[in-house]
């Protein structure tokens, strides 16, 4: 302010940083410190157990008894185990059927929501409800809806609409139980797919549709030639996550059927739990869990190449 401090008399008033502060300004040290908590947690509770699980699958570890190396014995046993083979088949079928339905219906719902409907943000919030409620708790609601005697669906179809003569035994026969589980999974999965795809739809420029309309494209052609290709990248990512988590699903099946009737709805994850924790054969359970890994890798690679394709489509700026 006043001009009595000139350059020759001015003294730096900034205090010298302490040794600790200088240590924290050292970039290498800072990087190490910043990554330590996340990396530590992931290494101890994710990477190490993953390796341990693969090792356990080659041993005969039991609950409370360290195992010894038995080579491929667990897998050989599983290969001849009808329950396991059935679980593999059913896991693939469950994933395929549920994903196909989730995406067909989710895309439809996203397209509906994209049509300038009133109260859009409120609708979007309501639609996400099935996805945010704890899976097990909504599964219990489905369990009650599927009750053999007091099912509300049977009641409506039988006593109100007179379409059927007797109650539907939703969880009593293998195929009924399977479709009931798929329905519950689709119910829970639609919101996520719909909201993600809606976000993708909103990034598509309206001028593309106008151009297509000027060229005389029908609404189906606009959907097929404009919407679908531009939605592909986000579709691929959502699809991978959906496949991955449906394949590794545990909660729904455990809560609604626990693998029954007669083991017909055991997913690989529920079977691994059944054999590993209450059954006590940790080695065998780990072998079942490990057999899921190849399928998961295929799904991940699929996502990798789908994203690669996106870069190629957009001219690959990264």
């Amino acid at each position, binding site marked *: 302010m006043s001009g009595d401090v000139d350059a020759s008399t001015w003294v730096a008033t900034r205090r010298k940083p302490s040794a600790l502060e200088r240590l924290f300004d050292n970039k290498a040290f800072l990087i190490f410190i910043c990554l330590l908590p996340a990396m530590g947690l992931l290494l101890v509770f994710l990477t190490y157990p993953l390796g341990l699980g693969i090792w356990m699958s080659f041993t005969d570890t039991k609950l409370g008894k360290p195992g010894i190396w038995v080579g491929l014995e667990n897998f050989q046993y599983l290969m001849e185990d009808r329950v396991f083979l059935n679980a593999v088949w059913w896991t693939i079928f469950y994933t395929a059927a549920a994903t196909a339905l989730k995406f067909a219906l989710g895309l439809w719902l996203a397209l509906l929501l994209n049509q300038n409907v009133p109260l859009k943000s409120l609708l979007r919030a309501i639609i996400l409800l099935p996805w945010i409620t704890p899976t097990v708790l909504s599964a219990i609601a489905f369990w009650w809806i599927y009750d053999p005697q*007091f099912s509300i669906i049977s009641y409506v179809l039988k006593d109100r609409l007179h379409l059927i003569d007797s109650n539907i035994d939703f969880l009593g026969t293998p195929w009924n139980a399977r479709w009931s589980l798929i329905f519950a999974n689709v119910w829970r999965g639609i919101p996520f797919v719909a909201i993600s795809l809606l976000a993708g739809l909103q990034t598509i420029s309206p001028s593309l549709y106008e151009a297509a309309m000027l060229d005389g494209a029908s609404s189906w052609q606009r959907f097929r030639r404009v919407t679908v290709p531009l939605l592909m990248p986000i579709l691929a990512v959502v699809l991978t996550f959906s496949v991955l988590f449906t394949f590794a699903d545990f909660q729904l099946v455990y809560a609604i059927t626990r693998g029954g009737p007669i083991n017909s709805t055991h997913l690989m994850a529920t079977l691994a739990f059944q054999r590993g924790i209450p059954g006590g054969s940790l080695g065998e359970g780990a072998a079942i869990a490990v057999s899921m890994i190849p399928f998961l890798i295929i799904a991940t690679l699929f996502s990798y190449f789908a994203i690669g394709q996106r870069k190629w489509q957009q001219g690959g700026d990264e």
Partner: protein
Amino acid sequence: MSNAVNTGVPNPSDYTEDDGPQVMAWDSGARRMITVYLPLACFLLILLFPFYWMTITSFKPNGELLDYKNNNPFWITSPTLDNIRKLLFETSYPRWLVTTMGVSFGATIISLFSSVLAAYAIQRLRFRGSKWVGLGIYLAYLVPPSILFIPLASVVFNFGLFDSPWALVLTYPTFLVPFCTWLLIGYFKSIPYELEECALIDGASRLQILRRITLPLAVPGLISAGIFAFTLSWNEFIYALAFISSSEKKTVPVAILTELVQGDVYQWGSLMAGALLGSLPVAVFYSFFVEYYVSSLTGAVKE
């Protein structure tokens, strides 16, 4: 990420269906009714019916609950709080709620702390190999808990944490940290680097920059990551089922399924009341932050 944040702003695509079709005389009111509102109403009906059914069941007296002949099952003639009273005073439900709340908060705080530091290091301290660390964290998210719980059970046992809530507080971050880190990397990316450079020139240390500049600007990201972490830990099931055995230490989802379901006669009223009360905290939490939730959900997918 940036276009996901301002979801409240009218999107150009909102006008498509309004202008185009009217000009083309394509979309009459009746047609719009059948192609848009009717399917939408069906979707809403199916998506919301289980909640309606859950609610109505939890307030029904037992007599009405199992008698469809003399009562309309879609309505309650004499609502009762009996099921909820039974749940709160005759079971350890309050204990389970407190445990779940504690575990979720603990896991969320640990995850947020480590994710913020990791995301800052990966996105802002840019070092050789930071891309690989980021990829590694992304891959960690793709490992589902259902292939980890058996070996994790033995790890937890060896650490002496079996049947302790700490087992859950420490294992939940395995799926929370990767998710939150990716979310926060996206947020940090949207903060101009120049701000940090200015602070560096003014003589701020790296930690001061993180605390005074980057974190305050990333608050929306922190809130989204926190909500996600909290809901995901509240919903977690398989670890809680495998690592906790004593009744009073269970979390709500596990306890309802293993403690309330006993014998062959199910107490549907109490079960539904338990499910409803267990979903309520998440739903309330969610309704406060719905915009953050939707934007981060869609943003995370777009990344």
